[in-house]
């Protein structure tokens, strides 16, 4: 078994539970009368309390216990679920989170509990659903399977439990007992009839027998008449102690009717997955070396095995991709709370709509996208959406709408944050860009280019930086993060109608199919997904265009970059240069290389911080011979190509 720290195991579970509780509460906020949601939240609190106690998180267990008790009254119908109550529990949940992460330092949450109790009391004026009916007399007739005694069931203990519920008259029946000579004392032949008088529900009686329920006979009937008239009608606000005691008397089995999705799932630590991923990566590298050796060997058996290994490695790699894929719903789930809070803080009414929650992404990508997306959403809420009055005046619904959507597009995932707010004010962007020196006054730029300026470092059109969006996570960081994932970020906006920010991220992170090329003495990998075509660059084409680096391809001009110049290799070019045309979907550029070596499936290794500023490369990979090849960052090169082209066009 693992040597995992039990506290850490608990923490992981607790975080998940708190997540579920939060989602449940947020759902409940929209559907206050939904019993199932109330039950679900209650169960979450209950489980959290139990686990917490078991692993020594006493402060958490104690605090959660209070919340659970308060919420229990809602569950029993003794207090209605109100927005104030939901808000109070949400706040308390924040405290619970703190108690999980830092048990000592979180304070005692007294204020939170007080608010919680106030919220519960406040709701209780209204008549609540009646407390569970407590008939007071029952006849309980039961018999046990013959092997019950051998299997450790103790009838006397069962009877003792019944006695705890109320006064009992017990009659045992020996009718089924065999004659004495044939009697095996280890087998149970007795049955019992018990008349029970007490403030108990049928389910309380059934609880006594839960362990033997499946194999026994049990008949419970209410007996009418003789109901003690003096029994006080339990007040809704009264101490729910007896009911609570009866309920807690035994571990309650789940109601049979409850639909439970029993998925076969296995919890695997994230680090184990990463290790596994690394092993697969190393396997891909070794397999690539094997392929190289085999391709040069006359040994047919070796070649055959090498192909087999290649196929297996490819399948393994595909499986790994799937294993690490997680639906984005988890990430989107976090935004519900965020938008809820944003609404409260800005005083704006904000509606969050999510689409494509089942879209799956590599786990690590989701983690890295969390903060950038949060920033974009905050931006929309803070700057994009207008206040309710402004919106009404503009003829829009009072509630602003933010739509979070995710979908697959080819080999990419596209995540979009759109709002129906006031759109991006071009004039303000321009003014800001000019004042920051990002744009020469009067310079002509396209609308798209103007909007892209938002992503420049140091740019912020907010007149004041609010606590929500001005956290040091600027749009430039968002762009860098997206590009660090080899993705592209785009923004579109219609004044008065709204804006959309789109993040397009390639699906596979760690292993890519690339085109291996040589420039000078160095080898480089170009992501195959970006490669459109490869052509030979004839010497005439090369020489002719000393003024402009443009090549004509089927009636279109494509700017090109001589990589040996870009890389300053200092080496003379090979006689037959090759042109690799790459694109980012919209724009293209040709890359001139000395040699195209071939397809190369490879594991991406990140470059360290020390090389993070080299924008031309997005990573590195280890080749079959142990050497290192740098992976070209296509968006950046395309951008460089465009800039160069503009300069040359302006000059010539």
């Amino acid at each position: 078994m693992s040597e995992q720290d039990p506290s850490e195991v608990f923490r992981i579970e607790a975080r998940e539970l708190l997540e579920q509780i939060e989602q449940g509460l947020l759902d409940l906020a929209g559907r206050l009368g939904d019993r199932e949601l109330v039950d679900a939240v209650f169960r979450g609190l209950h489980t959290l309390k139990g686990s917490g106690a078991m692993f020594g998180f006493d402060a958490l267990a104690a605090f959660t216990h209070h919340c659970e008790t308060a919420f229990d009254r809602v569950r029993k119908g003794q207090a209605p679920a109100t927005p104030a109550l939901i808000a109070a529990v949400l706040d308390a949940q924040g405290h619970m989170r703190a108690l999980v992460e830092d048990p000592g330092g979180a304070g005692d949450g007294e204020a939170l509990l007080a608010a919680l109790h106030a919220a519960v009391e406040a709701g209780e004026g209204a008549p609540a659903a009646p407390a569970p009916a407590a008939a007071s007399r029952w006849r309980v007739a039961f018999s046990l399977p013959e092997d019950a005694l051998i299997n450790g069931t103790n009838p006397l203990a069962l009877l003792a439990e019944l006695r705890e519920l109320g006064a009992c008259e017990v009659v045992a029946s020996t009718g089924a007992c065999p004659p004495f000579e044939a009697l095996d004392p280890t087998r149970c032949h007795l049955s019992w009839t018990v008349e029970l008088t007490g403030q108990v529900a049928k389910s309380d009686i059934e609880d006594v027998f839960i362990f033997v329920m499946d194999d026994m006979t049990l008949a419970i009937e209410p007996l009418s008449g003789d109901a003690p008239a003096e029994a006080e009608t339990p007040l809704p606000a009264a101490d729910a102690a007896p009911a609570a005691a009866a309920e807690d008397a035994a571990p309650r089995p789940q109601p049979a009717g409850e639909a439970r999705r029993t998925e076969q799932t296995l919890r695997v630590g994230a680090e184990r997955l990463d290790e596994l991923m690394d092993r697969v990566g190393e396997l891909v590298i070794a397999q690539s070396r094997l392929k190289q050796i085999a391709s040069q060997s006359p040994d047919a058996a070796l070649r055959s095995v090498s192909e087999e290994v290649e196929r297996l490695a490819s399948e393994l790699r595909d499986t790994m991709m799937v294993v690490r894929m997680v639906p984005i719903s988890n990430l989107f789930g976090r935004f519900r709370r965020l938008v809820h809070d944003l609404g409260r803080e800005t005083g704006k009414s904000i509606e969050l709509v999510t689409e494509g929650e089942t879209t799956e992404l590599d786990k690590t990508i989701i983690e890295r996208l969390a903060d950038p997306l949060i920033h974009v959403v905050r931006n929309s809420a803070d700057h994009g959406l207008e206040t309710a009055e402004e919106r009404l005046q503009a003829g829009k619904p009072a509630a602003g709408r933010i739509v979070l959507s995710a979908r697959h597009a080819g080999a990419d995932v596209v995540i979009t944050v759109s709002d129906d707010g006031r759109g991006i004010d071009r004039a303000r962007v321009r003014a800001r860009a000019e004042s920051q020196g990002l744009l020469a006054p009067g310079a002509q730029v396209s609308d798209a280019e103007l909007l892209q300026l938002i992503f420049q470092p140091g740019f912020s059109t907010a007149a004041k930086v609010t606590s929500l969006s001005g956290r040091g996570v600027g749009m430039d960081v968002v762009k860098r993060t997206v590009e660090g994932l080899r993705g592209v970020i785009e923004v579109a906006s219609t004044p008065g109608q709204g804006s959309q920010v789109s993040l397009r991220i390639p699906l596979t992170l760690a292993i890519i199919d690339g085109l291996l090329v040589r420039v000078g003495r160095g080898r480089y990998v170009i992501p195959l997904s970006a490669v459109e075509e490869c052509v030979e660059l004839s010497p005439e084409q090369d020489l002719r265009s000393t003024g402009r680096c443009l090549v004509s391809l089927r009636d279109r001009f494509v700017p090109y970059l001589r990589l040996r110049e870009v890389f300053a290799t200092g080496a003379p070019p090979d006689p037959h240069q090759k042109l690799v045309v790459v694109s980012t979907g919209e724009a293209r550029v040709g890359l001139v290389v000395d040699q195209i070596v071939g397809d190369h499936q490879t594991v991406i290794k990140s470059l360290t911080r020390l090389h993070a500023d080299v924008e031309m490369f997005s990573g590195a990979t280890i080749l079959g011979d142990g050497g290192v090849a740098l992976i070209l960052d296509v968006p950046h090169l395309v951008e460089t190509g465009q800039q160069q082209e503009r300069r040359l066009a302006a000059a010539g």
Partner: protein
Amino acid sequence: MTAQVLTVDDSASIRQAIKIALTAAGYAVAEAADGAEGLKKAEAGGFDLIITDLNMPVMDGLTMIQELRKRQALAGVPIVFLTTESDEGARQQAKAAGATGWMTKPFEPEQLVRVAKKVLGR
């Protein structure tokens, strides 16, 4: 007379948690780390209650329960197994093997004590 409880679980922290909870309630608790050890200690006799996990190395809980029930001398000793809420199948199997009752994980100390009292009658 103090009731003797044997807790069988490969997780030291679970055994610890059980021991603390039950000792506080007045029981005496012995431990075993897997089914084989549990079987051996149980055979030595003297236990009024056995609490066991199902997933253990060397010998799993289900097999241990089956073996325990084969021994005449251990007839009638209540055996409680630990299970997760959704594992209907395991519960049926364990009961068929001769277990007396179960506790769903995670459980609070009070729940554990209540179950112990329930099956022991004391």
